[in-house]
């Protein structure tokens, strides 16, 4: 039923990367340092633990997929 269109819709992994980048992009105007901190905070506040684990793993598996701000934010989450 849904088959014909699946290719156009993001996988969960793609979507998580997209979402992290989107958050980082919307906070960019705050300046790099604050944007990194705010992105990390936002993800901690609103993503469930499994989603956070997954994005940490994705950051390792797909170098370059995350924008620099998003990547730095995910690094902080991984470190905590």
């Amino acid at each position: 039923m849904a088959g014909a269109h699946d290719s156009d819709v993001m996988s969960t992994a793609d979507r998580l990367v997209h979402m992290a980048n989107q958050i980082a992009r919307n906070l960019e105007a705050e300046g790099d340092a604050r944007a990194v901190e705010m992105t990390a905070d936002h993800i901690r506040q609103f993503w469930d633990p499994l989603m956070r684990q997954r994005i940490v793993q994705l950051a390792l598996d797909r170098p370059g997929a995350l924008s620099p701000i998003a990547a730095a934010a995910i690094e902080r989450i991984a470190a905590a």
Partner: protein
Amino acid sequence: MGFTRETDHGTPPALVTGRNVTLTIDGEQVTLPEGTSIMRAASLSGGSIPKLCATDNVESFGSCRLCLVEVEGRAGYPASCTTPVAEGMVVRTQTERLKQLRRGVMELYISDHPLDCLTCAANGDCELQDQAGAVGLRDVRYGYDGATNMGQPKDQSNPYFDFDPSKCIVCSRCVRACDEVQGTFALTIEGMGFNSKIAASQNDSFLASDCVSCGACVQACPTASLIEKKVVETGTPDRAVVTTCAYCGVGCTFRAEMRGQELVRMVPWKDGKANRGHSCVKGRFAWGYAQHQERILSPMIRASVSEPWREVSWDEAIAHTASEFRRIQDKYGRLAVGGITSSRCTNEETFLVQKLIRQGFGNNNVDTCARVCHSPTGYGLKTTFGTSAGTQDFDSVEQADVILVIGANPTDAHPVFGSRMKQRLRPKNGKAGAKLIVIDPRRIDLVKSPHIAAEHHLPLRPGTNVALLTAMAHVVATEKLYDEAFIRTRCDWDEFQDWADFVSEASRSPEAIEPLTGVRAADLRAAARLYATGGNAAIYYGLGVTEHSQGSSTVMAIANLAMATGNIGREGVGVNPLRGQNNVQGACDMGSFPHEFSGYRHVSDAAVRETFEAAWGVTLDSEPGLRIPNMLDAATDGSFKGLFIQGEDILQSDPNTHHVAAGLAAMECVVVQDLFLNETANYAHVFLPGSTFLEKDGTFTNAERRIQMVRKVMAPLNGYGDWEVVQLVANAMGLGWNYTHPSQIMDEIAALTPTFAGVHYDRLEAEGSLQWPANDAAPDGTPTMHIDGFVRGKGKFVVTDYVPTDEKTGPRFPLLLTTGRILSHYNVGAQTRRTANTAWHPEDRLEIHPLDAENRGIKEGDWVSLKSRAGETTLRALITERVAPGVVYTTFHHPDTQANVITTDYSDWATNCPEYKVTAVQVGLSNGPSDWQEDYAEQARQSRRIMTVEAAE
């Protein structure tokens, strides 16, 4: 029996001036506000002057001459409905001469009125009858030959009320109600003198006219000339219970007028502070779904969704539900299940569902359909002001000088508030109307309607809200139109300056963004100046703001503008989200979001968590749970297996239907609690019948934060209120709840939620309603928020950077689709489609500009296909210049259309609220329903089968 209408004081209350006058009426001294009519004064002091053409919902007109009185020192017999009280006046309402005059008037009326009172539907509820009695009419000297009115055909075209011109006394109450209360101007008086007649616009039938079927005229009519079909069918009611509409976030209160267990009619309650005696077609008339034959009354289960449903006892259904959730958690882990609360259910029911999940499932996987509409409001207003709610009450609009409407269509989506807004937009009693700015891709009705014309309509391209609002801020900052004193005392000046520097950059000027938004820079500048300098300026916004990839940013951009111009913290100003469903506000307040407890407190806050842990006797999860789209992702990935859905139809209402369907199909136990086998139920394993708002006690909270009572007027057909069903499930899971009435649930909410600390049923009974916060600091509730300071302390300016959506038009998908709703239907239409409201909107149509239609060879009414990267559907075209070239528009009320097959999976960056309002699409001619629609219809038919039980021997 116990039934009477609400007292009608004849004329509306006087405008408040603070001055009183004292006069004598029939020997009694009374003191009343100046401007009050003699009629109202007499009524308020316990008397009643005969009247026909006056009613207190509309301005008096003075045409029937039945209400004559004598005033000492004045010649003649002034009409009491049009004569204001004056200091020292001495009024007599009943003298021999007056009696004579009134009988004469009455005789004339009756000589042109059929005398079939005994068989008339309004018998016992007719003011003409009452007044004939009141003036002591015993004989009609003129005979009945002069009749010009009798014997005319009835107009029965409207599905809910009849118009019988033979019974019309041409009092014009209906015309005034339509003009003044509703603001539609659908009725006129044709002809002169004895030959005058009431007619719907252009002499059409009511159904074909501009009438929107709000029923204000029916309520105003003193005779059986305009009367509810249901009253004709059933007879007059014998008791009345005040309750709250279950359709939209306006929260109109009604007297449900009953005969026994049968609902006869809903009459808007004049004391209702949200609606002030008015309503729309949905609340007044569209409640027939409650008894619709498709309503499911027995619980049902099935092992797989390819099987037909099997009816079971409540015990079996509840035990099965509890054991399934436990089984899934044992097998897949604590986090593999969750639930969805409903913005259609009561606060108490919503609170219980999230409690079931947090206490019983032991996780925070609870979300609500507010996710897909107003979650950005929550995020945006919490960040800037400190609390997730609109700042004003509805009455506030009466003090506004400038009204800015962005991404909202109040006359369709919030009709009663739309009417109140229109009252303020029209000049009244010598006061100029408020000025109107509309920011919307579509030319909504408000832009130009009878006696109203928007000062500015900025038809922006969908998806450019933030750019446009930032450009307005640019004008405010660079032209120094901001309110420095307000900002210095109420906000942080340094933060303001950072923000002002940001918006002042040349790249954010109206001229620079014109190519992006398509809005002329000069118009934008003029609108910004008007908003900033036009006096009290109030912003009203809707889903056209929130349902974008930058929904949260747009809400914050709105808040920034309001703070910069000092338009916060008093009557007539503010930032007002117009909520969609009846209890969206309440669902959010009650802790339906996965990251917060009731009262918007994050689950990671240990002190807050401890209060809940103490009350509920369990350890609660300190980590945020999954939001609806995340649940569906997790389901497709195999880690999320069970979902309890109360009163929501996520398959139809959530974006990207294919993805939702795939997620649901991947789960092992989907429980749907609803009135009907909705679309989501096609993927459900357990169906628990729901109850309607007529069948239970509880509260709803409207868009003004107003908590109002919902009262049980009849026993639940399915046997239980929804709160009882949730309690049964909880107890089957061993939680040991023992609520015997929803008032106890509210007591628990009050004990655990500081902003609700003062909310209890006895207080609500006494006050009629309360606006939260209602606690020791604000015992009577809070009509206007942030008066002396923001909830968060200082208001916060947030830099909102415009980030274009990833949903882009291109050669494959060159048009932008935006979605919305219309007056007569509600959300996914599950209820309204099961009422006679289908008379107005039998199908969803695609609005397309003539240019785009012509390019594609599309003519009015043609079947067209609508394709996006997510899917395809077909519907019929409606060619109109309401939409700009390049933009198409449709509603999503009918499952056959499934507009959400088209919408994609992009969402708001902060809240995952889906981007319904922008989808790149292509439109082309088509022969009829798409393959998908046919497959879907077949799948739906299959999964709705119910096993017929063999009749017992």
